[in-house]
């Protein structure tokens, strides 16, 4: 079992290597994507596309921030964390209901679909974001 990491070092690359090192956030500006191994150390690869409907990426002196949070609910580890200025901020595991709400919101911003309870989802997201930012 690999150790969990609490920091990610950002490396800018043209192509993402086939094998990732733990604790490194690989960013390909050309391909609009960042990849890292799950910070819990489980070895699963996490892809965060850096496009409008996916993730925002900000590079600062202290390190990289990726928004919104990384929710690896499909991995056995179920890790959930935020990458902020190169540091891992661990968040609680999400309930199935929260995960489904996230998925519904995801579908909404991508396709403009109108699932039921849309306003509630958006409000829930705003609360979640506010909690994380604060």
């Amino acid at each position, binding site marked *: 079992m690999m150790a969990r990491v609490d920091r990610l070092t950002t490396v800018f*690359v043209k*192509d*993402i290597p*086939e094998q990732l090192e733990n604790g490194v956030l*690989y960013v*390909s500006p*050309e*391909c*609009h*994507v960042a*990849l890292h191994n799950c910070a819990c150390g489980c070895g699963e690869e*996490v*892809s*965060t*596309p850096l*496009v409008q*409907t*996916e*993730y925002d990426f900000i590079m600062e002196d202290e390190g990289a921030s990726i928004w*919104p*949070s*990384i*929710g*690896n*609910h*499909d*991995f056995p580890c179920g890790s*959930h964390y935020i990458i902020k200025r190169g540091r891992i901020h661990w968040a609680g595991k*999400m309930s199935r209901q*929260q*995960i489904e709400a*996230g*998925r519904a919101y*995801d579908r909404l911003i*991508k*396709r403009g679909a109108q699932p039921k309870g849309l306003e509630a989802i958006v409000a829930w997201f705003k609360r*979640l974001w506010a909690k994380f930012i604060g």
Partner: protein
Amino acid sequence: MPDTSNFTYKLDGRLVATDDAILSGRDIRGNAGLNPMSDYVLIQIVDRASRSIGLDETIDLREVDEPEFLSFKGDRTFSLTVNERGFEWGAATISAADIYRCASIDEDLELILDSAGDAVIPADGEVTLSEKGVERIRGREAKTVIIKVNGRPRTVPKKKHSYREIALLAYPDADFDNFKYTITYLKGVHGAEGDLVEGEKIEVKNGMVFNVRRADKS
């Protein structure tokens, strides 16, 4: 008063201005400070072909649209054909990038070397020329293209690819029953970008970018 430099041409990628409509190979070498002149080969790119320009040969800039020359240190010229058009070159190697550019070949086509049994010349490769033979090169519709999937190059058939095919390129052990894969794409045919969902297919082109995310965004 009209501009004193009435004519321009390109030498090795740089724009040169001149008052003279008619220039000799000697003049062009002299303007570039290539000395001694006989130590340099001067090549002119002309309508998807190229030819060497001797010291005493003259060029009328009024008759050429955007005249372009390349200089090479050396005293030998090499011959090749690209899509049946004659090329002369001043070095023993020519890069695929130069062939695409000088012969105006569409970047979606692949270059084929006749003498090597129709071998494909990689887009970042080069061809070695000999003083004796004439290398024959042509462009043809590529059978494969190189796309980027999660930032990694993948060679795939040039055809329409489905949501599942792209997801499998990122995650060869993808489990569609239990997991959700979100696919976004950029730099597609005619600049296409968007997201690819279950049941959809999309045409691919060289340099197209696909990003596949397995985890949920929360």
